[in-house]
């Protein structure tokens, strides 16, 4: 059996994958999905290690398509092979799809409610904080082992966040630099 599924995570069942991604899909109000996936997959269940999760996230950003969808394919595949990938993506997308269309049908009634706008803006602001907290947490985990990643973290943050350079070329260049440094340091 030369599959790439993690041998130490084969006790993960399809039902667990389904429940996890359905939960993420239906609770991620205001965004912050990669933070939700990090919390559920890495922090709470330990299905992936920090560095593997982050490596997959980088690949997901460089490849076409939604980065959280790409990340879900990776997590599903690593835990339960091809079927795991399909279950992860379907569970992440289908329930919120049904929900979002139902929201759209009643949107004009909801749009009158000023407090609801404010409520959702507040939720979105907290979701930004949640995303940032994953950045801080993973930065701390990486820097606990080695110092050099700090340079790359700051460079990518400044290039994409502050200078607003296009994400994919920055990720490819920074990824290449990271690969070179990591291979020299061993």
């Amino acid at each position, binding site marked *: 059996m030369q599959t*790439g599924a993690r041998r130490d995570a084969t006790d993960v069942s399809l039902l667990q994958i389904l429940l996890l991604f359905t939960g993420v899909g239906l609770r991620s109000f205001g965004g912050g999905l990669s933070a939700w996936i990090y919390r559920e997959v890495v922090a709470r269940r330990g299905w992936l290690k920090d560095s593997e999760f*982050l490596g997959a996230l980088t690949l997901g950003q460089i490849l076409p*398509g939604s980065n959280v969808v790409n990340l879900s394919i990776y997590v599903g595949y690593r835990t339960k092979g091809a079927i795991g*990938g399909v279950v992860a993506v379907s569970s992440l997308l289908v329930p919120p799809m049904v929900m979002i*269309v139902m929201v759209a049908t009643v949107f004009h009634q909801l749009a009158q409610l000023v407090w609801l706008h404010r409520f959702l803006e507040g939720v979105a602001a907290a979701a930004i904080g949640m995303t940032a907290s994953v950045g801080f947490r993973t930065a701390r985990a990486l820097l606990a082992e080695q110092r050099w990643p700090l340079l790359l973290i700051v460079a*990518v943050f400044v290039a994409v966040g502050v200078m607003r350079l296009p994400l994919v070329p920055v990720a490819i260049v920074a990824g290449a630099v990271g690969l070179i440094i990591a291979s020299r340091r061993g």
Partner: protein
Amino acid sequence: MRDNVYLQLITVFVPISLLSLGGGQRIVTDINQQAVAIHGWVTQADFVDLFAISKAAPGPGTLLTTLIGWKASGWPGAVVASLALFVPSSVLTYGATLAWARHDQHAWHRTAARGLAPVATGLILASAFSVLRLSSATWMVWGLAAIALVVFVARPKMNPLTVLFAAGLLYAGLGVMF
């Protein structure tokens, strides 16, 4: 030409699926142009509403595509547009995942993951910062995001929904007072 609408959805969203790299704002701009100016599936005012819904509702922001398909042709349109957006890029990613994971026994695989990890961390922080900068954010929104950040860092085990809803209630409450 009503029976062509599915074909149109496919010809619009398959290229977006495969070519819109880096996600985010670029994808939204492309979808906006196609859905409003080129195909007239929705008006610009509708588009703004649908975009707001896709940002606030749970699930990835790219579910905007589902809503455009639904406006264009009901539930079948929603399904066709979603499949057209998500399947091609997912097949590609699956192939890349297979290639990447096949070598997980080699030492270089772990080295590669270590080399890429700082990039993802920088991108996560950048995405949080960019959203704040884009969202015509008031100082109160920045403050709320900062408080949430502190709470999430200090209490990683806490249920995120509690924090999200508390922030929503707080911001709605402040809106009543000011």
